[in-house]
């Protein structure tokens, strides 16, 4: 069979390039979207609070040589870039290459460290599942589902990176004095930022892959092998190979999201990375820098996606070809654990509904940072809001928004990903991989520029980014399903495309994808939070979990209840959604 053959590989090249070009034009249109002269913006960054100064703006406009339209600007920039001239920054007047090169290098090192930690974490969490699964099938009824494959990864995935970062600094740098607080020199300075980004990413990876691992463990060839009483070690090896094959494209997506979107962690540790450079450049409308960062990130992302695709191809195909027959989805349910979750859920609902009647919007400066007390059982924040009432209102707002976004992302991701997976057998890098590299803050700023800041725009921006990892996952699953023996057998026996999709491909895609989407639900909540922090989300005085988290993290040491509340809710939410996904699937 000719997987990843020349035609499909070639077919994706124009699409990839067109997507890239479109992205560049959208970014270059920023000043027009915002309706503001870049000369004015650049002047403001060089000299704060200078005010109206038409003469200076005019002088700067002459100096900057501004394009007359986004398209002509992009074409000129591209023609120079292809000749190796990336131009000079409008703000700092330094050559763009000198700014973007080191920043990308830094971000890649950081993302590599974080990814290594994430893979190590995911490996540790998955080992028991695979080991036990190979021996006796996935989570038989008699056994409790492993904590390590369900709640623990979900909880890790819901940890806000900034909270891990600040807590890590307080413990490892201030208290134990073993790690640097800031800076980027030597391996030691990569440890805390790497952990801040790697722990949540590891949880996410483990959660997604445990779904795939369990699916693989139910496949007939696994059962046949187990029944045959042969040595189990080659079986485990084969399962691990399949898990790595499914995981590689996902790991790339996780890694790329770190390259472009880890602004908060970069800021905490003063790391001069690509995320911060891109954000600052967008805020300053420094188009040469924005375009170069975007181009750099896209190139890196495409290379990484190609490597992941190769890994997938090498590891997945032989095993997939070995598969034959119809997979059966086994029911796995655990009554005891379910009761526990019903109790947790009931408790959460009671707490929330009581909080709903508390006033979360009245300020009282005499209660500033008040510790939990009888009158305010969850304490008060920096302006004296009752934290319980605020949490209850914030949970409702944030969870309903995040759930809506996740649902939409699931539908779009499943459709786009399945289509891509069926069209080009084998995950060839394409338009999806270009889009997967877009930093989430950049999307947020573009949407805010077009729609104005607000919750509506923030939700749209989060959605714009959220469907992509799901689509990449769906593409991998769909192309796996298509190459499975039973599907090819169905094609040979004359099954039409509709039946193929309905009976064979979609069931194989939707299960793992639904779980994946639910794991990402807290990420959607955190995405809104991140934009709220930039002032592109909820009004600052409106109760919203992410905004509460962002405002509270500075007080982690003096008033930890400000962080524990919203972070705890996000973790509970993550654990609840993944366990309900488990029930829903079976």
């Amino acid at each position, binding site marked *: 069979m000719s997987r990843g053959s020349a035609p499909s590989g070639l077919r994706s090249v124009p699409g990839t390039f067109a997507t890239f070009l479109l992205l560049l034009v959208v970014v270059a249109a920023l000043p027009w979207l915002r309706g503001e002269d870049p000369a004015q913006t650049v002047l*403001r960054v060089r000299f704060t*609070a200078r005010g*109206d*100064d038409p*003469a200076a703006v005019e002088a700067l406009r002459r*100096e900057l040589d501004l394009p007359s339209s986004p398209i002509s600007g992009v074409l000129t920039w591209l023609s120079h870039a292809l000749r190796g001239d990336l131009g000079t920054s409008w703000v700092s007047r330094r050559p763009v290459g000198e700014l973007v090169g080191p920043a990308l290098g830094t971000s890649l090192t950081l993302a590599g460290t974080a990814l290594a930690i994430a893979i190590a974490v995911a490996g540790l969490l998955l080992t028991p599942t695979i080991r036990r699964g190979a021996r006796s099938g996935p989570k038989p009824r008699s056994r409790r589902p492993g904590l390590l494959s369900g709640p623990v990864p979900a909880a890790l995935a819901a940890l806000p990176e900034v909270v891990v970062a600040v807590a890590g600094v307080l413990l490892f740098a*201030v208290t134990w004095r073993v790690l640097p607080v800031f800076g980027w020199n030597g391996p030691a300075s990569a440890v805390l930022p790497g952990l801040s980004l790697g722990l949540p990413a590891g949880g996410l990876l483990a959660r997604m892959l445990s779904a795939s691992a369990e699916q693989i463990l139910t496949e007939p060839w696994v059962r046949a092998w187990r029944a045959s009483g042969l040595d189990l070690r080659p079986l485990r090896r084969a399962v691990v190979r399949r898990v790595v094959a499914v995981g590689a494209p996902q790991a790339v997506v996780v890694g790329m999201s770190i390259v472009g979107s880890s602004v908060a962690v970069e*800021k905490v540790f003063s790391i001069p990375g690509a995320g911060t450079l891109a954000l600052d450049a967008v805020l300053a409308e420094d188009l040469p820098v924005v375009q170069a960062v975007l181009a750099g990130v896209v190139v890196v992302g495409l290379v990484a996606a190609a490597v992941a695709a190769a890994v997938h191809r090498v590891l997945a195909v032989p095993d997939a070809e070995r598969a034959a027959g119809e997979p059966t989805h086994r029911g796995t349910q655990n009554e005891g654990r379910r009761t526990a979750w019903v109790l947790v859920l009931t408790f959460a609902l009671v707490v929330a509904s009581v909080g709903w009647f508390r006033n979360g919007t009245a300020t009282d400066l005499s209660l500033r940072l008040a510790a939990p007390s009888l009158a305010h059982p969850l304490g008060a924040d920096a302006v004296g809001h009752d934290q319980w009432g605020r949490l209850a209102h914030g949970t409702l707002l944030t969870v309903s928004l995040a759930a809506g976004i996740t649902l939409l992302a699931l539908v779009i991701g499943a459709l786009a990903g399945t289509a891509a997976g069926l069209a080009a057998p084998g995950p060839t890098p394409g338009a999806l991989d270009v889009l997967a590299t877009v930093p989430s803050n950049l999307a947020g700023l573009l949407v805010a520029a077009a729609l104005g800041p607000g919750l509506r725009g923030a939700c749209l921006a989060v959605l714009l980014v959220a469907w992509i990892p799901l689509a990449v996952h769906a593409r991998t699953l769909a192309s796996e399903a298509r190459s499975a023996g039973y599907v090819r057998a169905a094609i040979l026996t004359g099954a039409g495309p509709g039946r193929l999709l309905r009976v064979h491909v979609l069931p194989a895609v939707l299960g793992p994808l639904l779980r994946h989407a639910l794991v990402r639900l807290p990420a959607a909540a955190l995405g809104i939070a991140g934009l709220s922090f930039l002032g592109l989300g909820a009004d600052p*005085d409106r109760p919203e979990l992410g905004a509460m988290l962002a405002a509270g993290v500075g007080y982690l040491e003096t008033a930890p209840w400000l962080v524990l509340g919203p972070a705890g809710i996000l973790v509970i939410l993550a654990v609840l959604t993944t366990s309900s996904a488990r029930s829903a699937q079976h």
Partner: protein
Amino acid sequence: MDHARVLKTSAIATAFVLSLLPLAACGSDSDAAGSDGPQTLRYAYAFTPVAALSPYSDDAVTSYGVGATETLAKLDASGSPEASLATGWEQTDARTWELTLRPGVTFQDGTAMDAQAVAGSLTHATEADPAPRSLSGTDLTVTADGDTKVTIVTKTADPVLIQRLTSPELAILSAKAYADPASPSVVGTGTGPYTITQLNGTTSADLTANTSYWGGQPALAGIELSFVADGDQRASALRAGQTDVAQAVPADQLEPIGTDHVLAVPLPRTVSLHLTQSSTVFSDPAQREASRAALDGLDLAGTIYAGAADPAKGLFSSVSTWADDRPTPDYPKAATPQKQKITLATFSDRPELAEIATVVADQWRKAGFDVKTVVQEYNQMESDYLAGTYDAVIMSRSYGQDTADPISYLQADFSCDGGYNISRFCDKTLDADLAKAATQTDVNARNQAAVAAEHVVLSDVAVIPLIHDRTQFGLADGVLGLAGDPWERAVITAKTTISH
């Protein structure tokens, strides 16, 4: 075998991470040793360079603050100019100033600072396009007059020319600095006690003592300057023993650091609530007064700033002692708040401002206003501030930025065509008074005019001053001799020392 492999890989990765911990421990305490002789001071600085430390940008304050660059004159604590690289000046007619240069000054690259070099350096600044903020709207010619004097001729009379020359943007640099005249280099081209030897992107800069400094041998061996944008991290670095001086420590970190390790400097910086006069609601003085009265009795300085700021008495802070005897404002009569939506905006770069906005919005709602709040990064909002998009804006504004001249500040912020008129205030009488004051050479007369103008805008409730800010330096044990400059310029001087 395979699960073992997974385990092994994970174990190796974990071991790798853990093995870095002791490595890190070695790195962080390396310079605690050695107690004799000059030390290197580690300085965690808040503002990341925007233009590679070019003096024709806000970076000018950075190289000035660490003692790399100097200006012809500098401001004393009260805001009057005093000698620096120039030892004296004389106004020979309304438009002509003659400055006498300090003898025996050499640049850090070894060349002599003669009249030619000074005139060249200043001429580059006048030719810069866009002009540095301190020269905005001026037109002046600088010529060398012999070896030790320069003559500055302004196109129109400029009574605050010497104050202008105190701006770090007009630092005197050697000819070598101007390879790119639009973005001069301060690496090894200044006259100050410390020489910048290297700028490492936007991460850090290295400085060594300038042994031929005109003011005597600097007390430190050098400075390790790190750019750390996050205030909590600067405080953490100080507590972790990883920096000696942390600039601009946030109020909530003062307690963990301990008050004996903090140098608080009152600033000419006031956080005020501007009520936009083009707003439908706030065009009515009675509504403005109702909104002001609703905020009476809030103790923002004591709570949100945790006592690290002073309650505002007017636009001018306690740094400006001449404003202490200001008259009480004559407020208009208040009316019942209108039920029309008003938007209150502020920026997120200073975390306290968003908290103030939340409190103000809540107070206004309790009083009967219908309020929406908007908080974004400053750079995203400035044009909307100036265009009068919002009904009210909470602003943190320094009136000592360029010339430290109160009249220039009032003209920019409260005259009809002022460049920074957030209140959209316009009063022809006030404009005429300010224009007249601007021609005065007598500092006392200018200050009195400033107090009178402040009385007009406060009585009209165009602006409600909330607090006067301070800057807090966190200091490690043994750090002595910081400049404590209220004008937010000088920080480290030749006399700053550290003994571990």
